[in-house]
C-alpha cells in the first residue's frame, strides 16, 4: 500500500511538472509542463464538462480524432442538449440563491401530526386551545360523524379531549384515516363569519382542516418549498431552451406550477402567518386544476403584466424579503455593481449629514443608498415579507384615508401595513398617506415604483450594463476567473454579440467557449 502511495505521489509531483529547459540528456524522463493550448480532445473534454457536466463519449472522441478539431455541429449539439439546460439552471442558482429552507410556509395551527401508536391525525399546536394541551384526541370514534356537536371528555391530566372521525385526505385519497373531531371540521366559515382557511380562521375553535383536510399541511411543507424553488429552474429552462431573449427571464409573466404548488396557493397559503400572502402571489383564477400528488407535471401559468420574470417570482421575493435586499442581489448579480465601501472605508460624514433620516443624504450611508434606494423602489409594489402585488386600483400611491388616520389615529391594517402612517423623523410627516415605498423617493423615481422591475431591466439593458454583466458572468463561469483589464475589449465583444444575437444566452456561451482564451489552460 505504501508503495502504491509513493508511486502516486511521485506521479502527482511529476504531473505538476517543472519548467526545466529542453534538451536534457534524459529528456524522455522529464515531465514537461503541458502546453497552454488544449489539444482537440482536451478541448472536447472541457467543452463537454462545461456544457453538459459529463465527459465525452467514445464516439465523440472518435469524431474529434478523425477531424482533429471539434466540429461546430458538436458544440451546437452540446448547447441543444438537456444537460446544457441543467448547467444553465446551475449557473442561475448562483445568481438567484434559491433556498427557502427554514422559511415557514404553513401556519403552525394548520399543521397535522400523526400519533403512530393510535394512527390519529391531529393539529398539535391548535390542540392547545380546545384540548388544553398539545395532545391528540381520544382513540374513540366520535358519536356524531357530521360534527354537529363535538363531545369533549375531561381527562385525568386536566385536558378536555374529543373523539375521532373517519375522513379521506387530499394526500392519500381513497383511504380513510382517523382524524380528531375538532381538526376534521369542514365548515367554510366559523360561527362569527371568519373564513376558516384564513389566518384568522386558523385560530377559531370551530374551524378545522376543511373537506378532505385540504387546508392543513401534513409533512409537505418541504414539498411546497421545493416547488417554489423549482419554479425558477423551469423558467430558466424554458427561456434558454427555446432560445428566447434572455431579457424574458427577467420580464416574462409566466410561472410554473405543479400539483403541490397549486394546492398550496389554492388552499394553504392564505393562513400563513410568517409573511404576507395577501394579496396572493398567484390569483386562484390563474391556477390550473392539478392533482395534488402530481409532482412531476409542471404547467406554465400566465400571470398579469406587472410580473417581471424571476425578479418577482415567489422564490426570489421570499429569499430576499426586503426591497433593498432584492435590489442589492439584482445589482450585484445582474448589473455587476455590488454595494461595497471604497478601499479605505467610507468617507467621514460632513456636519449635519450624519443625522439626516433620508439614507440617500445621510453621510456615509449615501455612498450606497443614493443608488440603492431608487433601485429598491422598482419593487415598491411588491410588499416586503410578501409575494403579492399591490395593484394601483386597491393600493393607490396616495390614500387620503391613510393620511387622515396618520394625523388623527385609528388606522386600519390596510393603512398601517402598506402606507406611511408613522413618522420616525419630522421630515417623514410629509409622506403621510403615501405607499411605504414612496418614502424619500424623488420625482424621477416615481415611475420605478409604478412600472416595477421590468422597467429596471429595460433600462440596464438599454445602457448595456446587463449584457456586459452577463458576459462577465459567463466568463467567470467558463474561464474560471474574472476578466483582466487588457481583456475589456473581448468582454465588450461578447456583450455586443449577445445583444446582436437577440440576447440569446446559448450564443453568449458559445462565444465564450470558442474564444482562444478558453482553449488556453494553465
Amino acid at each position, binding site marked *: 500500500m505504501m508503495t502504491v502511495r509513493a508511486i502516486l505521489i511521485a506521479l502527482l509531483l511529476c504531473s505538476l511538472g517543472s519548467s526545466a529547459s529542453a534538451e536534457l540528456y534524459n529528456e524522455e524522463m522529464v515531465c514537461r509542463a503541458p502546453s497552454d493550448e488544449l489539444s482537440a480532445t482536451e478541448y472536447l473534454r472541457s467543452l463537454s464538462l462545461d456544457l453538459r*457536466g459529463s465527459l465525452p463519449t467514445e464516439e465523440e472522441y472518435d469524431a474529434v480524432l478523425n477531424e482533429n478539431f471539434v466540429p461546430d455541429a458538436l458544440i451546437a449539439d452540446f448547447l441543444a442538449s438537456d444537460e446544457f439546460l441543467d448547467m444553465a439552471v446551475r449557473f442561475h442558482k448562483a445568481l438567484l440563491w434559491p433556498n427557502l429552507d*427554514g422559511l415557514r410556509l404553513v401556519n403552525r395551527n394548520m399543521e397535522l401530526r400523526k400519533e403512530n401508536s393510535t394512527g390519529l391525525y391531529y393539529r398539535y399546536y391548535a390542540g392547545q386551545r380546545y384540548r388544553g394541551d398539545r395532545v391528540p384526541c381520544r382513540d374513540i370514534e366520535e358519536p356524531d360523524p357530521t360534527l354537529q356537536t363535538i363531545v369533549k371528555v375531561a381527562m385525568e391530566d386536566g385536558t378536555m379531549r374529543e373523539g375521532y372521525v373517519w375522513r379521506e385526505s387530499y394526500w392519500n385519497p381513497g383511504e380513510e384515516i382517523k382524524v380528531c373531531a375538532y381538526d376534521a371540521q369542514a365548515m367554510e366559515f366559523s360561527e362569527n363569519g371568519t373564513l376558516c382557511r384564513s389566518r384568522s380562521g386558523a385560530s377559531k375553535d370551530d374551524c378545522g382542516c376543511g373537506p378532505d383536510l385540504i387546508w392543513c399541511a401534513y409533512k409537505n411543507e418541504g414539498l411546497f418549498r421545493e416547488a417554489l424553488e423549482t419554479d425558477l429552474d423551469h423558467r430558466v429552462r424554458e427561456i434558454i431552451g427555446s432560445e428566447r431573449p434572455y431579457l424574458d427571464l427577467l420580464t416574462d409573466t409566466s410561472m410554473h406550477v405543479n400539483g403541490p404548488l397549486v394546492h398550496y396557493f389554492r388552499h394553504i397559503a392564505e393562513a400563513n402567518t410568517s409573511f404576507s400572502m395577501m394579496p396572493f402571489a398567484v390569483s386562484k383564477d390563474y391556477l390550473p386544476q392539478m392533482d395534488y400528488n402530481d409532482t412531476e407535471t409542471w404547467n406554465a401559468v400566465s400571470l398579469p403584466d406587472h410580473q417581471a420574470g424571476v425578479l418577482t417570482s415567489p422564490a426570489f421575493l421570499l429569499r430576499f424579503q426586503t426591497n433593498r435586499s432584492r435590489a442589492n442581489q439584482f445589482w450585484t448579480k445582474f448589473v455587476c455593481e455590488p454595494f461595497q465601501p471604497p478601499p479605505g472605508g467610507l468617507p467621514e460624514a460632513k456636519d449635519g449629514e450624519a443625522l439626516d433620516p433620508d439614507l440617500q443624504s445621510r453621510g456615509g450611508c449615501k455612498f450606497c443608498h*443614493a*443608488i440603492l434606494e431608487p433601485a429598491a423602489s422598482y419593487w415598491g409594489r411588491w410588499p416586503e415579507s410578501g409575494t403579492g402585488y399591490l395593484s394601483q386600483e386597491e393600493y393607490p400611491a396616495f390614500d387620503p384615508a391613510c*393620511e387622515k388616520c396618520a394625523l388623527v389615529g385609528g388606522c386600519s391594517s390596510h393603512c398601517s401595513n402598506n402606507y406611511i402612517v408613522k413618522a420616525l423623523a419630522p421630515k417623514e410627516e410629509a409622506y403621510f*398617506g403615501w405607499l411605504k415605498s414612496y418614502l424619500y423617493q424623488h420625482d424621477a423615481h416615481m415611475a420605478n415604483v409604478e412600472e416595477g422591475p421590468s422597467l429596471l431591466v429595460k433600462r440596464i439593458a438599454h445602457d448595456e450594463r446587463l449584457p456586459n454583466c452577463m458576459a462577465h458572468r459567463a466568463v467567470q463561469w467558463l474561464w474560471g476567473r*474574472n476578466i483582466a*483589464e487588457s481583456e475589456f475589449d473581448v468582454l465588450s465583444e461578447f456583450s455586443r454579440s449577445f445583444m446582436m444575437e437577440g440576447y440569446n444566452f446559448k450564443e453568449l456561451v458559445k462565444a465564450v467557449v470558442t474564444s482562444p482564451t478558453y482553449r488556453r489552460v494553465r
Partner: protein
Amino acid sequence: MSRWLSIFAVCILTLVGCVEEQLPSAPINPHTTPNHPAPETIPEKPTPAAVPVDLHGVGESELVPVSADEANVRPRKRMNVEQLDRALRRVTGGIGWDKNNKSELERLAATLGRPDYRQVVQEDLTPSPVFLKFLDDAARAVCTELVEREKTQGVEERVLMSHVELEDTLDSAPEKVQANLRALLLRYHGVVLGDDAPELETWRWLHTSVVHVTKDPVQAWRAICIALINHPSFYSF
C-alpha cells in the same frame, strides 16, 4: 498599488453612469390631496442633496479584474460534485462511489464545496486536501469494484483492461499494455499520446512497479485506475 488605483478608477467610471441616471432632478411633492394639513404646518419638502459622484466606487469584490499575467489564458477548473460523480461513472462504465445505492459524493457535497445558497453562497472549487482525500477514497472504491467486475468479463466488455489479457505485462505483451495505457489516458484525461510519448513513461513505470511488487498485473491496472483519477488531469479541465 497602481493596479488598485486603476481598478478603482474603472469602477468609479462604471458607477458614475449609474449615479447620474439615478439621481433625481427634484424631489416629489408628496401632498396632492385636500386632506393634508394646513400649509403653514406642512413640513418642508424633502430635498436631499445631490450625492457627490466621486464618493462612489467598489472595493474588493468578486468582480475585481485579475492581474495582467493571468490574461489570455484560463486556469484549470476543478470538477464540481456532479461533474465528478458523472465522470467516475463514465470512465468506469457505470460504477460510482456509492454506499447503499446512494452516492457518497452527494452525501459529501457540502464538504466538497457545493453551496446551499443560504449559509454558503459561493461554490468552493479549490482542490483542497479534503477534496483530494475524498477523491482518493472514491478512486480506491470505484477502481477496486471495477477490476473485480472486469475479472469476470471478456475483453470486449471491459473498459479498464480493454486491450490486454488479465495476465499481460510490459514484459510479456508490451504493445498491448502500451495500447491499453493510451486508451485509458484518452478515456480518463482526454489526451492522445503516441507510443513514444515521454508522458507514457511514468505510466509504464507505475505498471511495472506494481507488477514487480504484487506479481499481479490486475493490481497494476487497479493502481493505474486510482492514479488516473487522482491525477489533476482527471479532476480538473
